[in-house]
């Protein structure tokens, strides 16, 4: 099993981006590539080649679910596990996200001290399944 190092985070709120990057890099020891818009995510992921992608659900323009769809259609990126990060949602929405192909949902607000562990746990889950 390989370690999770390269993570891409797509999120439109700059402060949340900054805090998540800090949490994943400093606490979690990962390398994080940030992306502020869904429509830029695919080309950025092509270059960065993340092991896992985190998507905000509600973004102006291309939202999280549509970004996921675009990633799924990409020949090199379709296998990269994707998790949504979103404020408290109802159970049926979590089911909907999973049916779109997301490996899980990380709830917001997140605690910067434990975010990296949550992400790694999801990653481990996908590694075990594959």
């Amino acid at each position, binding site marked *: 099993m390989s370690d999770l190092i390269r993570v891409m985070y797509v999120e439109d709120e700059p402060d949340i981006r900054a805090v998540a990057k800090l949490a994943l890099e400093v606490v979690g020891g990962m390398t994080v590539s940030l992306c502020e818009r869904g429509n830029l995510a695919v080309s950025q992921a092509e270059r960065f080649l993340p092991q896992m992608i985190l998507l905000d659900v509600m973004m102006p323009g291309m939202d999280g679910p549509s970004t996921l769809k675009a990633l799924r259609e990409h020949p090199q990126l379709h296998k990269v596990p994707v998790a949504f990060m979103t*404020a408290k949602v109802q159970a049926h929405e979590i089911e909907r996200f999973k049916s779109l192909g997301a490996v899980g949902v990380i709830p917001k607000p*997140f*605690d910067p001290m434990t975010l990296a562990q949550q992400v790694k746990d999801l990653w481990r889950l996908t590694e075990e399944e594959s």
Partner: protein
Amino acid sequence: MNLNEQLQAIQDEYLKKLPGILDQISVLARELQQTAPNRDRLITLGQELHKLAGSAGTFGLTVLSERAAELNQNLDSILSSKAAEGGPGNEALQLKDALDSLSLFAKTGPSPNANLPLGAGATPATINKLLLDQIWLLEGEPQLGATLMAHLESFNFSARLFTRLSELASAFAEEQPQILLLDLSSEDENPSTDYVSQCQFFQNTSSRVIFISSKGDFAARLEAASLGAQAYFVKPLDVPKLINRIEQVVANMHAPAEKVLIIDDDEMLAQYYQQVLIGAGMQAEILARPEKVISVLESNTPDVILMDLQMPGISGQNLAAVIRQYARWVGLPIVYLSAEHDPHLQLLALKQGADDFLVKPITNEHLVTVVKSKVARSRQLIDLMTKDSLTSLLKHAAIKDALRRELGLARRKKEELCVAMMDIDHFKQVNDQFGHAMGDEVIASVATLLRMRLRRTDVLGRYGGEEFVVIMCNCGSNEAFKVLDDFRQRFQELKFSVEGKVFSATISIGIAPIKPTMEIDADMLLVAADKALYQAKSQGRNRVILQKAETAAN
């Protein structure tokens, strides 16, 4: 800036923007009241609340976050219940007051109960604890347990003591430390003990395991190895060696990614290998033009070269031979990657100074494993060559080389730099009174404490006997003084014990700072630091003396 300060800075930015966000929500709410209820507006409002719920909580505004989430859910249920009837009804209007009250929650500021270090509830101590490397110790003997805990804590590990394996195992289900330090001797007394089943809980986790045992025989060591032990210590314990080993294991966990240089004229294939290696967490660069290899080695300093055997105009063997002409790259691992199946030709290629031969096609796993193990081995060898065995700090010659390099770098980047020289006070007396083994322990403790207290970018060396050199890059003199004086005080507080006698030691430190504009070479700088150290000694020892920058140059 440490993590907490960085988080604080981001939080401050957010708090500045928050009034604007709340105003926007109020405006949306007011419009809802004044105009006919409008579905699109309600959806926009819901989205704003959703975002607020997510971000406010992350910055410690728990109450505001919860209120926003609640209001968003109310809004959702209004939307879904009224959707069929063509628009929301009066309930929407009741939301308005609730929405206006949001700003009240915001004014209360970050909640002290927030489970976030930013909140007032978290003290610097708890934050630091989160950043320290976590060690769990299983030790059934109360006395040894207490001694080890004291040592671990004085070396800045966050340590937790367990006396029974079963308790440790159940805590492990909740949370995993970086290091498990397990003494299974007390479990030994029970003849039915089955380690293999008892130790299942940490198999395949990222925690590293070190065993302590009363048995030192081959069978016991083999069993520990099969359970994934990274190290094995036999009682009675050599505590400094144990701490040193823990440090090494932790350092390995934090080791930088392996840097690979791929030399191949087949661009597609090179890019494929690059992706495979990056996917395994390494850094990989491609060089398509072999004649540039030396300058690329200088700038990239890879850990390993992966090269094709046949390239247009140049063979891999000859390229390897050129690389080996440079003394600096004699130890750099070179691995061929080629479709050459003839064992005779493969051997011939290896004779020219390469380390391994991989035959294409190769599975990704094979490639990754070979590259990783070559790098690990070569890093170990480099450590052995350049590092002092007692302290794992750079040896005399290596620290001088490092100083020359860092000095050049500081000048190019126009950064300040400080060099400190330090010497344990009255070290001869420590040796005479408590023996050489104890002297070694004191020396090793200086090294470990330095690693704990200084930044990872600082370069540390053992200059000779009880003398140390520290290079603090991009660091002004005041900052260096603060850090080293803090180190000096902490060192003085360390307690050493030998045969029931407890003693402590002190250290004197001289610092020579330079400004990027100063014309000074490494030797002069060391002399300046040594002068400052001499002053510290002659003024009564156990102190830090800062040489003025101008004086250092003269």
